[in-house]
Each structure stands twice: as structure tokens, then as C-alpha cells.
């Protein structure tokens, strides 16, 4: 399953130079386009630092104020997105200093507490016929398209998402909800491909398990 790049901007993205020039000239169309396109990502990242959706939205608007105000000083030594991202995280930290701790991504130790994707009890043990094979296999989700779009299933998924550890929630959000590519996410957050995959894997595994639990219960 390849990352879906169809959710990325459909027009070829303007170069940083073009975008910066347009912003410096006060080009509202370019600005609105960029604002809308980057909003989900910016809000998602901000949300990992602050306590509420509303504050995350505030942080995004404040970030844009700083970007617009500071665009003349932007020297192009980094990518525009990188520069904006650092403003965003600084703005978010200003808020979170008043609310809760912010943990930079780069300091995350991923090796802690290996969590199996599926309860080990679901697999056969060494003294059984097929060690490591399913003991309690997954059951097909009947008519998955219809079932999974049900309001209840959606709410269940959203609840499970809200319960994910922060970093897993962020990666799953960026990759699977916002449709960003692995490369974009790694560059944005300063993660290695492997670390990004680990977080994605753990997050998706928990969500699948949550849906399975819900759907199995709904079947009985």
C-alpha cells in the first residue's frame, strides 16, 4: 500500500522563492491557498503541545501572524516549511509552558516498552502444533465499507485515536488522516524513516485492535 500522494496539493507546488515573493507582496490568493493546505498539519502538530483544539487553532493563527510579519527577514537558508515549523513549535511551547510539558520529538526514546501489536495469547505457544500461528484468528469484518462508515464505528475510532500516546496519534494523523507522505513527515518532525514507521505501526495496530473489539462485540 503506497502512501497516497493524491491528497497532497494537486497543482505542482510553487517553489519556496515564488511563495515567499508572493507573501511579501501581500498576495492574498497565495496566502489563503497555503494557509488552507498547511492548516491540518499545523494544527495537528500544535495540538501535541497544547491542551485543547481551540488553543491549537489559536497557535496556528499566531504562527501565521509571525510568518507574515517576519517574511521579509526570511533568508531562505532553510526551507520555508522548516522555518514555519520552528515558529509553530515556539508559539506552541509558549502556550504549553503555561499548560503542560512539551517533549521535543528528537528526544523520544522509542525503545521503551515494546508493545506487541496483537495480544500474544492470540497465538499458539511453543508446545502447540503451530507455534507462532494464530490460535484465535481475526474474523473478517463483514461488509467493511458499510460497517466502518457507521456513525458508531467512526466515534469508536475517534475515541481510540484520542487515547493513543501523543506521538503515535500525531504520526497516524499526519500519515493516514492528512495523507502526508512518509518523507514529508520525517522531514517535518526530524524523524528517521524507521522511527516514523515504528510509531505508525504501533498507532495503527492499536486502532485496528480497538475496531476489532468494537466490531466483534457488535456481531454478538
Amino acid at each position, binding site marked *: *500500500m503506497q*502512501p*497516497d500522494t493524491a*491528497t497532497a496539493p494537486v497543482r505542482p507546488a510553487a517553489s519556496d522563492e515564488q511563495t515567499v515573493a508572493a*507573501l511579501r*507582496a*501581500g498576495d*492574498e490568493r497565495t*496566502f489563503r491557498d497555503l*494557509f*488552507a493546505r498547511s*492548516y*491540518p498539519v499545523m494544527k495537528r502538530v500544535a495540538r501535541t503541545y497544547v491542551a485543547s483544539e481551540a488553543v491549537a*487553532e489559536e497557535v496556528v*493563527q499566531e504562527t501565521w*501572524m509571525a510568518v*507574515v*510579519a517576519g517574511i521579509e527577514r526570511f533568508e531562505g537558508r532553510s526551507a520555508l516549511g522548516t522555518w514555519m515549523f520552528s515558529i509553530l513549535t515556539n508559539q506552541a511551547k509558549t502556550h504549553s509552558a503555561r499548560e503542560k510539558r512539551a517533549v521535543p520529538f528528537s528526544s523520544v526514546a522509542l525503545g521503551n516498552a*515494546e*508493545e*506487541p*501489536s*496483537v495480544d*500474544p495469547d492470540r*497465538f*499458539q505457544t*511453543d508446545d502447540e502444533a*503451530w*507455534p*507462532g*500461528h*494464530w490460535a484465535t*484468528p*481475526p*474474523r*473478517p*469484518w463483514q461488509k*467493511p465499507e458499510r460497517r*466502518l*462508515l457507521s456513525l458508531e*464505528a*467512526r466515534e469508536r*475510532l*475517534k475515541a481510540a*485515536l484520542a487515547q493513543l500516546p501523543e506521538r503515535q496519534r500525531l504520526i*497516524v494523523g499526519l500519515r*493516514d*488522516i*492528512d*495523507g502526508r507522505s512518509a518523507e514529508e513527515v520525517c522531514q517535518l518532525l526530524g524523524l528517521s*524513516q*524507521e522511527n516514523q*514507521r515504528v510509531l*505508525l*505501526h504501533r498507532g*495503527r*495496530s492499536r*486502532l485496528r485492535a480497538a*475496531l*476489532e473489539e468494537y466490531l466483534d462485540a457488535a456481531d454478538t
Partner: protein
Amino acid sequence: MDNSRPPHNGHQDREFSVTADEVTCQQFVEMVTDYFEGALEPHTLSQVEEHLVMCDWCVTYVEQMQATIASLRELSEPSAPEPTDSLLAALRAKRGGT
């Protein structure tokens, strides 16, 4: 076939260098994301593909993962809010100079 390799509870080996002749289900569920991302070594990939030919249950697991991902896509937010008035004013001020 005598698979003397104990089932992994997690993956101790990020390269998933599977030295036994087959991938077990318990190993596969830990590899599924790397599989989707195209990050498996060729040898491991072919073992995974062989396993999926033989194991309907792991195929079901793959389908569940795909369905989970598809459902997440459905959660994507509606369009962004309006930029604030002060933001638009700051932008328009850049056009002001004549």
C-alpha cells in the same frame, strides 16, 4: 517443518532477518506496516508473500489494517477556518505601499 524459532512477542530485530524457513503469524503482525511501506528486505518480503498465500487469517489481518487506514482517511478534517481579520489586515498592509 520444525520451526524451532520461538514466537516473537515484539520484534527484537528491526531488520526482521528471518532465518527460519517461514514467517509466523505472530511475526507477520509486527511486519505489516513495513510491508505496506515497502520497507522489507527482498528475502523477507518474499517470505511474507509466501505466508500470505498460505494463511487466510493473516490476509484477513491485512484487510483489517487496510480498512482501519481507509476509515482514518474518512476522518480528515473539513476545510480550514478563515484566517483572522488581523492576519488578513497584516497581509494586506504589504500591498499598501504605493
